[in-house]
């Protein structure tokens, strides 16, 4: 009898607690280190702000690992509600119509106030469909800029950062004359030196508005502008104006060690450079070729966005919607932007950061935002939406490396890469049609 009473109390308690228990929302992400801690902090602040939902961030490794595990989990019906996917995975996510819950729809169906015009179009454009509706929520977006070593510049008697690639060449020569062995190096060569090069000069990287127009897109990066640029860089590799340092951002080591005086890298690399550079450095906009374009266009973004996956309860989706709203509120955005160096995704967050005097106190942090938001994005600068983009980037890396090593000329290398890349696009078209 006594036991029965106890049991009923326990059952009663557990019913009561489940009545109050917050709905759990899993969020898989790829933010390691300091950014990962910040992600936990953001989730905790959201959880503390209300009782109904509990967001659980789970670190799943790098971008590729996170995406692959989310897909594997989806196949096993164990998928998280939210997953962070890098920009090159966008086309794959979009094409998986049965797997994703478009953000604009989620917001509408859960009755969450959602004003798409509050977002920076240069950022969200990458993640909208042809009707301009947001499919995923931008979270961490960045854009390539030019970092330069002010100390080495001073020593060589240079007072200004180069604006154009012509100036990069003359600046590098002056630097070399003053004893610097390498002019510049680059991170993420395909993203910076081909994708963003094309956007900056408003020339297509691929047909049909860089793939936004449909799956029948074809690569176009073997045009005269790109060939001339790659050819020039091949020449620079020989005389030390450029020094290749790998496919990712390993080149940072050459910039830190002052071997290279300039470094084209993501705006989100700011925090790392600030921590590691034992010298005074500056941030300038990504150079363009004088004479090839009157007014350089905006650059396109890299980074990742948050996708909502199908297969969860209405209650959970309500929580997801309310979390995404929280995430894009001006104060959270401004804090994330200032902490990580990623771009703000709303105008309000940008204005708030400006109002707080952050840009004035941290020179260079605004460069990426300004570069991103000048002018209205065109079909060539809105972004890239290409299937099998991961493989295509690999193909481009191989082509560029064959030019840097002097094995193949730029035109041949890019022609081959376009041809091989198109095979990947056709394969994707066939799978997803």
């Amino acid at each position, binding site marked *: 009898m006594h036991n029965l009473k106890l049991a009923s109390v326990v059952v009663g308690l557990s019913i009561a607690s489940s009545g109050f228990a917050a709905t759990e929302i899993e969020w898989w992400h790829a933010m390691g280190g300091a950014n990962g801690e910040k992600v936990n902090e953001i989730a905790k602040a959201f959880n503390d702000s209300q009782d109904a939902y509990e967001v659980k961030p789970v670190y799943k490794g790098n971008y*590729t690992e996170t*995406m*692959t595990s989310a*897909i594997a989990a*989806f*196949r096993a019906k164990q998928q998280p509600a939210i997953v962070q996917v890098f920009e090159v995975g966008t086309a*794959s996510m979009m*094409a*998986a*119509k*049965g*797997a994703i819950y478009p953000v604009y729809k989620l917001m509408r169906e859960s009755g969450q106030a959602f004003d798409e015009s509050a977002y920076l179009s240069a950022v969200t454009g990458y993640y909208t469909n042809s009707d301009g509706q947001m499919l995923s929520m931008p979270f961490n977006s960045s854009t390539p800029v030019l970092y330069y070593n002010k100390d080495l510049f001073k020593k060589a008697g240079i007072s200004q950062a180069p604006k154009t690639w012509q100036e990069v060449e003359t600046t590098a020569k002056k630097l070399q004359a003053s004893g610097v062995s390498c002019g510049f190096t680059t991170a993420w060569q395909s993203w910076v030196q081909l994708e963003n090069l094309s956007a900056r000069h408003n020339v297509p990287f691929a047909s049909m508005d860089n793939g936004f127009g449909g799956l029948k897109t074809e690569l176009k990066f073997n045009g005269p502008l790109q060939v001339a640029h790659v050819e020039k860089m091949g020449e620079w*590799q020989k005389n030390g104006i450029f020094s*290749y*340092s*790998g*496919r990712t951002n*390993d080149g940072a*080591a*050459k910039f830190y*060690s002052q*071997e290279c005086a300039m470094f084209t890298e993501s705006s989100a690399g700011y925090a790392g450079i600030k921590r590691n550079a034992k010298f005074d450095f500056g941030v300038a906009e990504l150079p363009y070729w004088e004479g090839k374009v009157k007014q350089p266009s905006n650059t396109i973004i890299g980074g990742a966005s948050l996708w909502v996956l199908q297969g969860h309860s209405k209650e959970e989706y309500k929580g997801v919607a309310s979390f995404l709203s929280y995430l894009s509120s001006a104060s959270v955005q401004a804090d994330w932007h200032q902490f990580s160096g990623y771009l703000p995704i709303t105008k309000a967050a940008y204005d708030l950061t400006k109002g707080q005097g952050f840009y004035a106190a941290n020179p260079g942090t605004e460069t990426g935002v300004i570069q991103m938001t000048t002018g209205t994005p065109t079909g060539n600068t809105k972004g890239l939406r290409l299937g*099998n983009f*991961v*493989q295509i980037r*690999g193909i481009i*890396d*191989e082509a560029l*490396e*064959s030019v*840097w*090593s002097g*094995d193949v000329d730029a035109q041949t290398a890019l022609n081959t890469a376009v041809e091989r890349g198109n095979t990947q696009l056709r*394969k994707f078209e*066939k*799978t*997803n049609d």
Partner: protein
Amino acid sequence: MTVTFPQKGLPWLLLLPQLLVTAIFFLWPAEQALEQAFYQEDAFGLSREFIGLENFADLFTDPLYYQSMLTTLVFSFSVAIVGMSLALLLAVMADRIIRGKLAYQTLLIWPYAVAPALAGVLWWILFDPSMGPIALWLKSAGINWNHYLDGNQAMILVVIASTWKQISYNFLFFLAGLQAVPRSLIEAAAIDGASPFKRFWTIVFPLLSPTTFFLLVVNLVYAFFETFGVIDATTKGGPGQSTTTLVYKVFDDGFVGLDLGGSAAQSVVLMAIVGLMTVIQFRFIERKVQYS
């Protein structure tokens, strides 16, 4: 000679754990890969289309695939030969040590406990062209080390990184093999006036041939199948395609590129190649092996 068991059930029961492991971790995935290779499927598994041999046709019409095969052969044989020769040398030396034998042996076996990706990162740091100690030392010796640009240097790097941890494994087997060589044979040869070098090549090495053969098979299988972690951590298959081996391509196309059908077809081809190689080894090389 045949061992007989009183009941029929017992031998099967004893075999069961191993059979289960083989079935779950080898036969089942292999069957899945074989099936997958005939389909084209999107990453999420939402749609699936039977396309017959198209995945294979794509592979065999791609000239880069043949290049990757060649790269794999160069890589695998380098790993096997370098790894086995160094391990043999170390085993012979460790076998002669009298004091502190255990310490030496333990230290030599240690690297085997390091995960492949970690081994990759370790060597990647040592050889980093702008800050790696070995790269800087090579530079001061007049060798311009830059595996980001030089395909041959990249190959040397992945071979070193892949071989390093395999040396421990080989060492262990060679050492055990050496300890099994009867002392009386060596002593008899020494009395007959055979030099240490001659004693090694005419007595010890032939007696080691079963071990050597076993290690050759194991090392080739290791180099063919288990090295994608090292390659991913060091060169990512570059520069160009100079270190893209078949197994790295399987990993890259499947797990990074999410092309499941294409990747499955590649793994089926890889499985066939290794199967064929093992048959060849058993048919032709094993004849030269002397099982005492």
